[in-house]
Protein backbone atom coordinates (compact mmCIF):
# COMPACT_ATOMS: atom_id res chain seq x y z
CA UNK A 1 0.00 0.00 0.00
CA UNK A 2 1.23 3.42 -0.97
CA UNK A 3 2.69 5.64 1.73
CA UNK A 4 0.10 8.32 2.53
CA UNK A 5 2.50 11.23 2.26
CA UNK A 6 3.18 10.52 -1.43
CA UNK A 7 1.58 12.11 -4.49
CA UNK A 8 -2.00 10.74 -4.70
CA UNK A 9 -1.95 11.16 -8.49
CA UNK A 10 1.21 9.09 -8.81
CA UNK A 11 -0.42 6.29 -10.78
CA UNK A 12 -2.39 8.55 -13.12
CA UNK A 13 -1.29 8.40 -16.74
CA UNK A 14 -0.89 12.16 -16.78
CA UNK A 15 1.20 12.24 -13.59
CA UNK A 16 3.03 15.54 -13.36
CA UNK A 17 6.68 15.38 -14.40
CA UNK A 18 9.36 17.79 -13.18
CA UNK A 19 13.12 17.69 -13.66
CA UNK A 20 15.09 17.09 -10.49
CA UNK A 21 17.31 19.94 -11.71
CA UNK A 22 14.41 22.27 -10.92
CA UNK A 23 14.28 20.91 -7.39
CA UNK A 24 18.01 21.47 -7.07
CA UNK A 25 17.64 25.01 -8.43
CA UNK A 26 14.94 25.89 -5.92
CA UNK A 27 16.83 24.26 -3.06
CA UNK A 28 20.06 26.08 -3.90
CA UNK A 29 18.36 29.49 -4.02
CA UNK A 30 16.69 28.85 -0.67
CA UNK A 31 19.94 27.58 0.86
CA UNK A 32 21.66 30.68 -0.52
CA UNK A 33 19.07 32.91 1.13
CA UNK A 34 19.55 31.14 4.44
CA UNK A 35 23.36 31.21 4.33
CA UNK A 36 25.20 34.22 2.95
CA UNK A 37 28.39 32.17 3.14
CA UNK A 38 27.12 29.78 0.47
CA UNK A 39 29.16 29.92 -2.74
CA UNK A 40 28.40 28.08 -5.99
CA UNK A 41 31.20 26.92 -8.29
CA UNK A 42 30.50 25.75 -11.81
CA UNK A 43 32.39 24.52 -14.88
CA UNK A 44 30.63 26.17 -17.83
CA UNK A 45 27.26 24.50 -17.22
CA UNK A 46 25.42 27.06 -15.10
CA UNK A 47 22.18 26.95 -17.09
CA UNK A 48 22.37 23.28 -17.90
CA UNK A 49 22.55 22.10 -14.28
CA UNK A 50 20.27 24.97 -13.23
CA UNK A 51 22.54 27.02 -11.07
CA UNK A 52 21.25 30.05 -13.03
CA UNK A 53 18.53 31.09 -10.59
CA UNK A 54 21.11 31.21 -7.79
CA UNK A 55 23.47 33.14 -10.04
CA UNK A 56 20.84 35.74 -10.93
CA UNK A 57 20.03 36.27 -7.32
CA UNK A 58 23.61 36.23 -5.98
CA UNK A 59 25.87 37.16 -8.92
CA UNK A 60 28.94 37.74 -6.74
CA UNK A 61 28.58 34.31 -5.15
CA UNK A 62 29.07 32.33 -8.36
CA UNK A 63 32.58 31.21 -9.22
CA UNK A 64 32.89 30.20 -12.87
CA UNK A 65 35.99 28.11 -13.57
CA UNK A 66 35.31 27.39 -17.24
CA UNK A 67 35.63 23.93 -18.76
CA UNK A 68 37.98 22.66 -16.08
CA UNK A 69 36.66 20.00 -13.75
CA UNK A 70 39.92 19.36 -11.92
CA UNK A 71 39.99 23.05 -11.10
CA UNK A 72 36.28 22.95 -10.20
CA UNK A 73 36.76 20.71 -7.19
CA UNK A 74 40.18 21.93 -6.09
CA UNK A 75 39.13 25.59 -6.18
CA UNK A 76 36.03 24.49 -4.27
CA UNK A 77 38.26 22.81 -1.69
CA UNK A 78 40.29 26.01 -1.33
CA UNK A 79 37.19 28.17 -0.91
CA UNK A 80 35.84 25.74 1.68
CA UNK A 81 39.18 25.92 3.50
CA UNK A 82 38.42 29.61 3.98
CA UNK A 83 35.22 28.70 5.89
CA UNK A 84 32.75 28.97 3.02
CA UNK A 85 29.85 26.63 2.29
CA UNK A 86 30.62 25.52 -1.26
CA UNK A 87 28.48 23.77 -3.88
CA UNK A 88 30.46 22.63 -6.93
CA UNK A 89 28.46 21.33 -9.87
CA UNK A 90 28.86 19.82 -13.32
CA UNK A 91 27.63 16.78 -15.23
CA UNK A 92 28.22 13.64 -13.20
CA UNK A 93 30.40 12.17 -15.94
CA UNK A 94 32.83 15.11 -15.66
CA UNK A 95 32.61 15.56 -11.91
CA UNK A 96 33.20 13.12 -10.23
CA UNK A 97 33.99 11.27 -13.48
CA UNK A 98 37.12 13.16 -14.48
CA UNK A 99 38.45 14.53 -11.21
CA UNK A 100 38.22 11.62 -8.79
CA UNK A 101 41.73 11.86 -7.33
CA UNK A 102 41.33 15.58 -6.68
CA UNK A 103 38.08 14.86 -4.86
CA UNK A 104 39.76 12.11 -2.86
CA UNK A 105 42.80 14.16 -1.83
CA UNK A 106 41.61 17.73 -1.52
CA UNK A 107 38.02 17.17 -0.34
CA UNK A 108 37.77 13.76 1.34
CA UNK A 109 41.22 13.39 2.94
CA UNK A 110 41.19 17.09 3.85
CA UNK A 111 37.62 16.59 5.07
CA UNK A 112 36.54 19.88 3.51
CA UNK A 113 32.73 20.03 3.52
CA UNK A 114 32.37 20.66 -0.23
CA UNK A 115 28.97 19.75 -1.71
CA UNK A 116 29.38 18.10 -5.12
CA UNK A 117 26.53 18.15 -7.58
CA UNK A 118 26.43 15.65 -10.47
CA UNK A 119 23.65 16.35 -12.93
CA UNK A 120 22.81 14.33 -16.06
CA UNK A 121 23.42 11.07 -14.20
CA UNK A 122 22.25 7.76 -15.59
CA UNK A 123 21.37 6.33 -18.96
CA UNK A 124 18.28 8.55 -19.01
CA UNK A 125 20.61 11.37 -20.10
CA UNK A 126 19.56 10.03 -23.48
CA UNK A 127 20.42 11.48 -26.90
CA UNK A 128 23.83 12.86 -25.88
CA UNK A 129 24.93 9.25 -25.85
CA UNK A 130 27.44 6.99 -24.17
CA UNK A 131 30.08 9.61 -23.32
CA UNK A 132 27.63 11.68 -21.30
CA UNK A 133 25.78 8.96 -19.42
CA UNK A 134 27.32 8.63 -15.95
CA UNK A 135 26.70 5.06 -14.85
CA UNK A 136 29.60 4.79 -12.41
CA UNK A 137 29.44 7.94 -10.28
CA UNK A 138 27.79 6.35 -7.25
CA UNK A 139 30.52 3.72 -7.18
CA UNK A 140 33.26 6.35 -7.46
CA UNK A 141 31.87 8.39 -4.57
CA UNK A 142 30.68 5.54 -2.39
CA UNK A 143 34.18 4.14 -1.92
CA UNK A 144 35.55 7.38 -0.48
CA UNK A 145 35.81 7.71 3.31
CA UNK A 146 34.15 10.89 4.69
CA UNK A 147 31.87 11.21 1.64
CA UNK A 148 28.07 11.23 1.99
CA UNK A 149 26.24 10.12 -1.17
CA UNK A 150 22.70 11.20 -2.06
CA UNK A 151 20.45 10.04 -4.89
CA UNK A 152 16.96 11.57 -4.60
CA UNK A 153 13.91 10.20 -6.42
CA UNK A 154 12.13 13.32 -7.67
CA UNK A 155 12.26 17.12 -7.79
CA UNK A 156 10.72 17.70 -4.36
CA UNK A 157 13.13 15.29 -2.71
CA UNK A 158 16.04 16.87 -4.60
CA UNK A 159 15.06 20.23 -3.16
CA UNK A 160 14.95 18.81 0.36
CA UNK A 161 18.24 16.99 -0.18
CA UNK A 162 19.90 20.19 -1.44
CA UNK A 163 18.74 22.10 1.64
CA UNK A 164 19.87 19.29 3.93
CA UNK A 165 23.32 19.00 2.37
CA UNK A 166 23.77 22.77 2.68
CA UNK A 167 23.61 22.25 6.44
CA UNK A 168 25.96 19.28 6.44
CA UNK A 169 29.48 19.83 7.76
CA UNK A 170 31.16 17.15 5.67
CA UNK A 171 31.81 16.27 2.03
CA UNK A 172 28.68 15.23 0.16
CA UNK A 173 27.78 14.18 -3.39
CA UNK A 174 24.32 14.41 -4.91
CA UNK A 175 23.39 12.92 -8.29
CA UNK A 176 20.29 13.38 -10.38
CA UNK A 177 19.24 12.81 -13.99
CA UNK A 178 18.59 15.32 -16.74
CA UNK A 179 15.07 14.38 -17.79
CA UNK A 180 11.70 15.20 -16.28
CA UNK A 181 10.55 12.50 -13.88
CA UNK A 182 7.21 11.79 -12.20
CA UNK A 183 6.39 13.64 -9.00
CA UNK A 184 6.47 10.96 -6.30
CA UNK A 185 6.82 12.84 -3.04
CA UNK A 186 5.04 15.85 -1.57
CA UNK A 187 5.99 18.57 0.87
CA UNK A 188 4.80 16.23 3.64
CA UNK A 189 6.99 13.28 2.69
CA UNK A 190 9.74 12.85 5.25
CA UNK A 191 13.36 13.32 4.19
CA UNK A 192 16.46 12.98 6.28
CA UNK A 193 20.03 12.28 5.20
CA UNK A 194 20.87 8.71 6.22
CA UNK A 195 17.24 7.55 6.37
CA UNK A 196 15.58 5.33 3.81
CA UNK A 197 11.78 5.54 3.50
CA UNK A 198 9.23 2.80 3.00
CA UNK A 199 7.10 4.02 0.09
CA UNK A 200 4.93 0.93 -0.20
CA UNK A 201 4.23 -1.61 2.53
CA UNK A 202 4.50 -5.31 1.82
CA UNK A 203 5.66 -8.64 3.24
CA UNK A 204 6.69 -11.14 0.53
CA UNK A 205 9.76 -9.38 -0.87
CA UNK A 206 11.38 -5.92 -0.87
CA UNK A 207 12.30 -3.71 -3.81
CA UNK A 208 15.11 -1.39 -2.76
CA UNK A 209 15.45 1.41 -5.26
CA UNK A 210 17.00 4.81 -5.79
CA UNK A 211 16.64 7.82 -8.08
CA UNK A 212 14.19 7.72 -10.95
CA UNK A 213 13.90 3.91 -10.61
CA UNK A 214 11.78 4.42 -7.49
CA UNK A 215 8.86 5.23 -9.79
CA UNK A 216 9.35 1.96 -11.69
CA UNK A 217 9.55 0.13 -8.36
CA UNK A 218 6.23 1.58 -7.27
CA UNK A 219 4.60 0.67 -10.60
CA UNK A 220 5.92 -2.87 -10.12
CA UNK A 221 4.57 -3.04 -6.55
CA UNK A 222 1.13 -1.93 -7.71
CA UNK A 223 1.03 -4.48 -10.51
CA UNK A 224 2.25 -7.29 -8.23
CA UNK A 225 -0.41 -6.34 -5.67
CA UNK A 226 -3.01 -6.96 -8.35
CA UNK A 227 -1.62 -10.53 -8.58
CA UNK A 228 -1.78 -10.84 -4.78
CA UNK A 229 1.97 -10.56 -4.36
CA UNK A 230 2.79 -8.14 -1.56
CA UNK A 231 6.12 -6.35 -1.90
CA UNK A 232 7.66 -3.55 0.11
CA UNK A 233 9.26 -0.62 -1.73
CA UNK A 234 12.08 1.28 -0.06
CA UNK A 235 13.39 4.57 -1.41
CA UNK A 236 17.11 4.80 -0.66
CA UNK A 237 17.89 8.47 -1.19
CA UNK A 238 21.07 8.22 0.90
CA UNK A 239 23.38 5.65 -0.67
CA UNK A 240 26.01 6.34 1.97
CA UNK A 241 25.65 6.01 4.90
CA UNK A 242 23.11 3.34 4.10
CA UNK A 243 20.10 3.08 6.40
CA UNK A 244 21.05 -0.37 7.65
CA UNK A 245 18.21 -0.52 10.16
CA UNK A 246 15.44 0.03 7.62
CA UNK A 247 16.99 -2.36 5.09
CA UNK A 248 17.81 -5.17 7.52
CA UNK A 249 14.33 -4.95 8.97
CA UNK A 250 12.91 -5.40 5.47
CA UNK A 251 15.30 -8.29 4.83
CA UNK A 252 14.24 -10.08 8.00
CA UNK A 253 10.56 -9.45 7.46
CA UNK A 254 10.34 -10.19 3.73
CA UNK A 255 13.32 -12.51 3.09
CA UNK A 256 13.96 -11.55 -0.55
CA UNK A 257 15.41 -8.46 -2.23
CA UNK A 258 15.39 -6.79 -5.62
CA UNK A 259 17.48 -3.66 -6.10
CA UNK A 260 16.78 -1.11 -8.85
CA UNK A 261 18.99 1.75 -10.05
CA UNK A 262 19.96 3.72 -13.16
CA UNK A 263 23.66 2.91 -12.63
CA UNK A 264 26.04 -0.02 -12.94
CA UNK A 265 24.94 -2.64 -10.43
CA UNK A 266 28.67 -3.16 -9.72
CA UNK A 267 29.57 -0.60 -7.13
CA UNK A 268 26.14 0.99 -7.01
CA UNK A 269 23.05 0.45 -4.89
CA UNK A 270 22.95 -3.27 -5.76
CA UNK A 271 26.46 -3.71 -4.42
CA UNK A 272 25.81 -1.58 -1.35
CA UNK A 273 22.72 -3.59 -0.41
CA UNK A 274 24.44 -6.92 -1.13
CA UNK A 275 27.40 -5.99 1.06
CA UNK A 276 25.03 -5.32 3.91
CA UNK A 277 22.73 -8.29 3.42
CA UNK A 278 25.44 -10.90 2.79
CA UNK A 279 27.19 -10.02 6.03
CA UNK A 280 24.15 -9.77 8.24
CA UNK A 281 21.18 -11.73 7.00
CA UNK A 282 21.84 -13.52 3.70
CA UNK A 283 18.74 -13.78 1.51
CA UNK A 284 18.27 -13.98 -2.28
CA UNK A 285 19.10 -10.70 -4.08
CA UNK A 286 18.44 -9.74 -7.71
CA UNK A 287 19.86 -6.54 -9.13
CA UNK A 288 18.10 -4.44 -11.74
CA UNK A 289 20.38 -1.84 -13.29
CA UNK A 290 23.13 -1.62 -15.87
CA UNK A 291 25.14 -4.82 -16.11
CA UNK A 292 28.73 -4.08 -17.10
CA UNK A 293 28.09 -2.26 -20.35
CA UNK A 294 27.88 1.22 -21.81
CA UNK A 295 24.83 3.02 -23.16
CA UNK A 296 24.15 4.75 -26.48
CA UNK A 297 22.02 7.57 -27.92
CA UNK A 298 18.25 7.36 -27.76
CA UNK A 299 15.24 8.78 -25.99
CA UNK A 300 15.34 8.13 -22.22
CA UNK A 301 12.33 5.81 -22.27
CA UNK A 302 13.75 3.84 -25.25
CA UNK A 303 17.03 3.40 -23.42
CA UNK A 304 15.38 2.41 -20.14
CA UNK A 305 13.47 -0.22 -22.09
CA UNK A 306 16.47 -1.52 -24.04
CA UNK A 307 18.77 -1.63 -21.00
CA UNK A 308 16.24 -3.25 -18.71
CA UNK A 309 15.44 -0.38 -16.35
CA UNK A 310 11.71 -1.11 -16.28
CA UNK A 311 8.97 -2.24 -13.95
CA UNK A 312 8.83 -5.47 -15.99
CA UNK A 313 12.45 -6.28 -15.12
CA UNK A 314 11.74 -5.51 -11.48
CA UNK A 315 8.68 -7.81 -11.51
CA UNK A 316 10.78 -10.54 -13.12
CA UNK A 317 13.35 -10.04 -10.38
CA UNK A 318 10.72 -10.30 -7.66
CA UNK A 319 9.31 -13.53 -9.10
CA UNK A 320 12.84 -14.95 -9.28
CA UNK A 321 13.78 -14.14 -5.68
CA UNK A 322 10.43 -15.45 -4.47
CA UNK A 323 11.28 -18.81 -6.06
CA UNK A 324 14.74 -18.73 -4.45
CA UNK A 325 13.40 -18.06 -0.94
Amino acid at each position, binding site marked *: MLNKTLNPKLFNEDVERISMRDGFSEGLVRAGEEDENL*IAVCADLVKSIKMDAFTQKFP*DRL*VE*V*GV*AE*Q*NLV*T*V*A*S*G*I*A*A*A*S*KNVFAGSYAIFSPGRNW*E*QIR*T*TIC*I*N*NQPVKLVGSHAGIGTGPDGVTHQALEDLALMRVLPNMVVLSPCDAEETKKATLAMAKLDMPCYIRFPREEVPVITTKDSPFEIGKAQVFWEGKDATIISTGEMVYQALLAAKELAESKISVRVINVSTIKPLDTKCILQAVEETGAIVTAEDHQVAGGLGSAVSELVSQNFPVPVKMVGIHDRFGESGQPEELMEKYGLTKEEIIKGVLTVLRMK
Partner: protein
Amino acid sequence: MKLTAQKVEELEKIAQEVRREIVSMIYRAGSGHPGGSLGMADIFTALYFQILNHNPKDPEYLERDRLVLSNGHICPVQYAALALAGYFPLEDLQDLRKIGSGLQGHPYRGFLPGIETTSGPLGSGLSQAAGMAWAGKHDQKKWQVVCLMSDAEQDEGNVWEAVMFATKYKLGNLTAVIDRNKIEVDGPTEKVMPLGSLKEKYQAFGWHVLEIDGHDFKEIANAFEESKDIKGKPVLIVANTVLGKGVSFMENKIEWHSHSINKEELDKALKELE
Protein backbone atom coordinates in the same frame (compact mmCIF):
# COMPACT_ATOMS: atom_id res chain seq x y z
CA MET B 1 61.82 46.33 4.08
CA LYS B 2 65.33 45.40 3.03
CA LEU B 3 67.05 42.68 5.04
CA THR B 4 70.00 43.79 7.17
CA ALA B 5 73.23 41.85 6.97
CA GLN B 6 72.55 40.68 10.50
CA LYS B 7 69.13 39.36 9.56
CA VAL B 8 70.56 37.55 6.54
CA GLU B 9 73.14 35.89 8.76
CA GLU B 10 70.46 34.87 11.21
CA LEU B 11 68.31 33.35 8.44
CA GLU B 12 71.30 31.52 6.96
CA LYS B 13 71.93 29.92 10.34
CA ILE B 14 68.33 28.79 10.66
CA ALA B 15 68.38 27.40 7.12
CA GLN B 16 71.42 25.28 7.96
CA GLU B 17 69.58 24.00 11.00
CA VAL B 18 66.60 23.16 8.80
CA ARG B 19 68.93 21.26 6.48
CA ARG B 20 70.47 19.30 9.36
CA GLU B 21 67.01 18.29 10.51
CA ILE B 22 66.06 17.26 6.96
CA VAL B 23 68.96 14.85 6.52
CA SER B 24 68.60 13.53 10.06
CA MET B 25 64.90 12.81 9.75
CA ILE B 26 65.19 11.17 6.34
CA TYR B 27 68.07 9.06 7.67
CA ARG B 28 65.88 7.89 10.57
CA ALA B 29 62.82 7.37 8.37
CA GLY B 30 64.75 5.20 5.94
CA SER B 31 63.13 6.89 2.93
CA GLY B 32 62.08 10.31 1.67
CA HIS B 33 62.96 13.12 -0.72
CA PRO B 34 66.14 14.90 0.40
CA GLY B 35 66.95 16.72 -2.87
CA GLY B 36 63.95 19.02 -3.17
CA SER B 37 63.72 19.45 0.60
CA LEU B 38 67.29 20.76 0.86
CA GLY B 39 66.82 22.91 -2.24
CA MET B 40 63.87 24.73 -0.71
CA ALA B 41 65.37 25.16 2.79
CA ASP B 42 66.21 28.83 2.24
CA ILE B 43 62.78 29.75 0.92
CA PHE B 44 60.97 27.92 3.74
CA THR B 45 63.21 29.60 6.28
CA ALA B 46 62.52 33.02 4.78
CA LEU B 47 58.78 32.31 4.76
CA TYR B 48 58.43 31.10 8.35
CA PHE B 49 61.03 33.41 9.91
CA GLN B 50 60.58 36.61 7.91
CA ILE B 51 57.75 36.79 5.40
CA LEU B 52 54.57 35.07 6.58
CA ASN B 53 52.16 36.53 9.07
CA HIS B 54 51.51 33.48 11.23
CA ASN B 55 51.31 32.32 14.81
CA PRO B 56 52.83 28.97 15.81
CA LYS B 57 50.90 29.07 19.09
CA ASP B 58 47.61 29.52 17.23
CA PRO B 59 47.99 27.73 13.88
CA GLU B 60 44.33 28.27 12.93
CA TYR B 61 44.49 32.02 13.63
CA LEU B 62 41.99 33.40 11.09
CA GLU B 63 44.03 36.34 9.84
CA ARG B 64 47.10 34.20 9.10
CA ASP B 65 48.73 34.06 5.69
CA ARG B 66 48.10 30.67 4.09
CA LEU B 67 51.01 28.55 2.86
CA VAL B 68 49.98 25.79 0.46
CA LEU B 69 52.67 23.22 -0.30
CA SER B 70 51.62 21.68 -3.60
CA ASN B 71 54.55 19.30 -4.14
CA GLY B 72 54.01 17.50 -0.86
CA HIS B 73 56.97 15.16 -1.25
CA ILE B 74 59.35 17.88 -0.02
CA CYS B 75 57.46 18.05 3.29
CA PRO B 76 60.57 17.31 5.42
CA VAL B 77 61.63 20.93 4.79
CA GLN B 78 58.24 22.21 5.91
CA TYR B 79 58.19 19.92 8.96
CA ALA B 80 61.67 21.11 9.99
CA ALA B 81 60.72 24.78 9.52
CA LEU B 82 57.45 24.33 11.41
CA ALA B 83 59.21 22.63 14.32
CA LEU B 84 61.94 25.26 14.51
CA ALA B 85 59.29 27.99 14.34
CA GLY B 86 57.59 26.42 17.35
CA TYR B 87 54.52 24.65 15.93
CA PHE B 88 55.46 21.40 17.66
CA PRO B 89 58.44 19.98 19.59
CA LEU B 90 61.64 19.37 17.64
CA GLU B 91 61.81 15.80 18.91
CA ASP B 92 58.64 15.01 16.91
CA LEU B 93 60.81 15.20 13.80
CA GLN B 94 62.15 11.80 14.90
CA ASP B 95 58.86 10.25 13.84
CA LEU B 96 58.83 11.14 10.14
CA ARG B 97 56.97 8.45 8.17
CA LYS B 98 56.28 6.41 11.31
CA ILE B 99 52.89 4.91 12.08
CA GLY B 100 50.70 7.15 14.21
CA SER B 101 52.93 10.17 13.62
CA GLY B 102 51.74 13.62 12.59
CA LEU B 103 54.69 13.72 10.22
CA GLN B 104 53.23 11.61 7.46
CA GLY B 105 55.20 10.70 4.32
CA HIS B 106 53.22 13.36 2.52
CA PRO B 107 51.43 16.18 4.39
CA TYR B 108 48.07 15.17 5.83
CA ARG B 109 45.81 18.02 6.93
CA GLY B 110 44.56 17.54 10.47
CA PHE B 111 47.51 15.36 11.47
CA LEU B 112 49.91 18.22 12.14
CA PRO B 113 49.47 21.88 13.08
CA GLY B 114 50.40 24.31 10.31
CA ILE B 115 49.43 22.06 7.39
CA GLU B 116 46.81 23.88 5.30
CA THR B 117 46.13 21.01 2.91
CA THR B 118 46.88 17.40 2.16
CA SER B 119 49.22 17.08 -0.79
CA GLY B 120 51.34 14.61 -2.69
CA PRO B 121 49.48 14.01 -5.93
CA LEU B 122 50.91 16.86 -8.00
CA GLY B 123 49.22 19.76 -9.73
CA SER B 124 46.36 20.57 -7.36
CA GLY B 125 47.92 22.98 -4.88
CA LEU B 126 47.67 26.12 -7.00
CA SER B 127 43.93 25.77 -7.55
CA GLN B 128 43.33 25.24 -3.83
CA ALA B 129 45.48 28.28 -3.09
CA ALA B 130 43.51 30.20 -5.73
CA GLY B 131 40.24 29.11 -4.08
CA MET B 132 41.51 30.40 -0.73
CA ALA B 133 42.65 33.65 -2.37
CA TRP B 134 39.24 34.04 -4.07
CA ALA B 135 37.51 33.67 -0.69
CA GLY B 136 39.94 36.07 1.01
CA LYS B 137 39.39 38.65 -1.71
CA HIS B 138 35.61 38.13 -1.65
CA ASP B 139 35.61 38.82 2.09
CA GLN B 140 38.09 41.71 1.74
CA LYS B 141 40.61 40.02 4.02
CA LYS B 142 44.19 41.19 4.27
CA TRP B 143 45.80 37.77 4.45
CA GLN B 144 47.94 36.51 1.59
CA VAL B 145 48.19 33.06 0.05
CA VAL B 146 51.54 31.57 -0.94
CA CYS B 147 51.67 28.40 -3.04
CA LEU B 148 54.86 26.44 -3.48
CA MET B 149 55.17 24.19 -6.52
CA SER B 150 57.86 22.14 -8.21
CA ASP B 151 58.91 22.80 -11.78
CA ALA B 152 58.07 19.31 -13.06
CA GLU B 153 54.63 19.73 -11.56
CA GLN B 154 53.98 22.28 -14.30
CA ASP B 155 53.42 19.26 -16.58
CA GLU B 156 50.03 18.81 -14.89
CA GLY B 157 47.02 20.29 -16.70
CA ASN B 158 45.35 21.19 -13.42
CA VAL B 159 48.08 23.80 -12.83
CA TRP B 160 47.18 25.72 -15.99
CA GLU B 161 43.49 25.63 -15.16
CA ALA B 162 44.41 27.39 -11.93
CA VAL B 163 46.78 29.81 -13.68
CA MET B 164 43.90 31.06 -15.87
CA PHE B 165 41.52 31.18 -12.93
CA ALA B 166 43.86 33.35 -10.83
CA THR B 167 44.21 35.85 -13.67
CA LYS B 168 40.46 35.96 -14.35
CA TYR B 169 39.66 36.74 -10.72
CA LYS B 170 42.58 39.21 -10.39
CA LEU B 171 43.97 37.42 -7.37
CA GLY B 172 46.53 39.97 -6.25
CA ASN B 173 46.64 38.22 -2.87
CA LEU B 174 48.14 35.08 -4.41
CA THR B 175 51.86 34.47 -4.84
CA ALA B 176 53.13 31.24 -6.37
CA VAL B 177 56.70 30.03 -6.16
CA ILE B 178 58.17 27.48 -8.54
CA ASP B 179 61.16 25.52 -7.29
CA ARG B 180 63.13 25.61 -10.55
CA ASN B 181 65.81 22.99 -9.95
CA LYS B 182 65.31 21.50 -13.43
CA ILE B 183 65.38 17.92 -12.15
CA GLU B 184 62.57 15.39 -11.91
CA VAL B 185 62.27 11.66 -11.26
CA ASP B 186 62.99 10.48 -14.80
CA GLY B 187 65.74 13.01 -15.55
CA PRO B 188 66.24 16.67 -16.44
CA THR B 189 62.94 18.54 -16.79
CA GLU B 190 63.95 19.82 -20.20
CA LYS B 191 64.35 16.25 -21.41
CA VAL B 192 61.39 14.58 -19.69
CA MET B 193 58.93 17.30 -20.73
CA PRO B 194 60.49 20.58 -21.82
CA LEU B 195 59.09 23.52 -19.86
CA GLY B 196 60.99 26.25 -21.66
CA SER B 197 60.58 29.69 -20.17
CA LEU B 198 58.13 29.51 -17.30
CA LYS B 199 58.48 33.26 -17.00
CA GLU B 200 57.20 33.83 -20.53
CA LYS B 201 54.49 31.22 -20.16
CA TYR B 202 53.07 32.75 -16.97
CA GLN B 203 53.41 36.27 -18.36
CA ALA B 204 51.43 35.19 -21.41
CA PHE B 205 48.70 34.03 -19.01
CA GLY B 206 48.59 37.46 -17.36
CA TRP B 207 50.75 36.92 -14.29
CA HIS B 208 53.42 39.25 -12.92
CA VAL B 209 56.62 37.20 -12.89
CA LEU B 210 59.81 37.65 -10.88
CA GLU B 211 62.89 35.50 -11.19
CA ILE B 212 65.31 35.07 -8.30
CA ASP B 213 68.18 33.08 -6.91
CA GLY B 214 66.30 30.81 -4.50
CA HIS B 215 69.27 30.68 -2.15
CA ASP B 216 69.75 34.44 -1.75
CA PHE B 217 67.77 35.73 1.23
CA LYS B 218 67.83 39.32 0.03
CA GLU B 219 66.38 38.33 -3.33
CA ILE B 220 63.79 36.09 -1.69
CA ALA B 221 62.66 38.81 0.73
CA ASN B 222 62.61 41.50 -1.97
CA ALA B 223 60.54 39.33 -4.29
CA PHE B 224 57.85 38.70 -1.65
CA GLU B 225 57.91 42.39 -0.73
CA GLU B 226 57.39 43.31 -4.37
CA SER B 227 54.64 40.72 -4.77
CA LYS B 228 52.60 42.48 -2.06
CA ASP B 229 52.76 45.70 -4.05
CA ILE B 230 51.42 44.14 -7.24
CA LYS B 231 47.67 44.75 -7.23
CA GLY B 232 45.05 43.04 -9.34
CA LYS B 233 47.13 40.17 -10.66
CA PRO B 234 48.76 37.06 -9.24
CA VAL B 235 52.53 36.92 -8.90
CA LEU B 236 54.87 34.08 -9.77
CA ILE B 237 58.35 33.87 -8.33
CA VAL B 238 60.56 31.55 -10.36
CA ALA B 239 63.14 30.50 -7.80
CA ASN B 240 66.25 29.07 -9.38
CA THR B 241 67.47 26.48 -6.91
CA VAL B 242 69.96 23.67 -6.61
CA LEU B 243 68.57 20.24 -5.81
CA GLY B 244 70.28 18.96 -2.66
CA LYS B 245 71.70 22.43 -1.86
CA GLY B 246 74.22 22.40 0.98
CA VAL B 247 75.28 18.76 0.74
CA SER B 248 77.95 18.55 -1.96
CA PHE B 249 77.43 14.93 -2.94
CA MET B 250 73.67 15.46 -3.38
CA GLU B 251 73.75 18.74 -5.30
CA ASN B 252 72.21 18.53 -8.76
CA LYS B 253 72.18 14.72 -8.63
CA ILE B 254 68.97 13.20 -9.96
CA GLU B 255 69.25 10.13 -7.74
CA TRP B 256 68.85 12.33 -4.64
CA HIS B 257 65.34 13.36 -5.64
CA SER B 258 64.07 10.37 -3.67
CA HIS B 259 66.64 8.41 -1.72
CA SER B 260 67.34 6.97 1.71
CA ILE B 261 70.37 8.23 3.62
CA ASN B 262 72.81 5.81 5.32
CA LYS B 263 74.86 6.53 8.45
CA GLU B 264 78.02 7.36 6.55
CA GLU B 265 76.17 9.75 4.24
CA LEU B 266 74.43 11.34 7.22
CA ASP B 267 77.72 12.01 9.03
CA LYS B 268 79.26 13.47 5.91
CA ALA B 269 76.21 15.66 5.26
CA LEU B 270 76.01 16.89 8.87
CA LYS B 271 79.67 17.81 8.77
CA GLU B 272 79.15 19.91 5.65
CA LEU B 273 76.12 21.56 7.24
CA GLU B 274 77.83 22.68 10.45
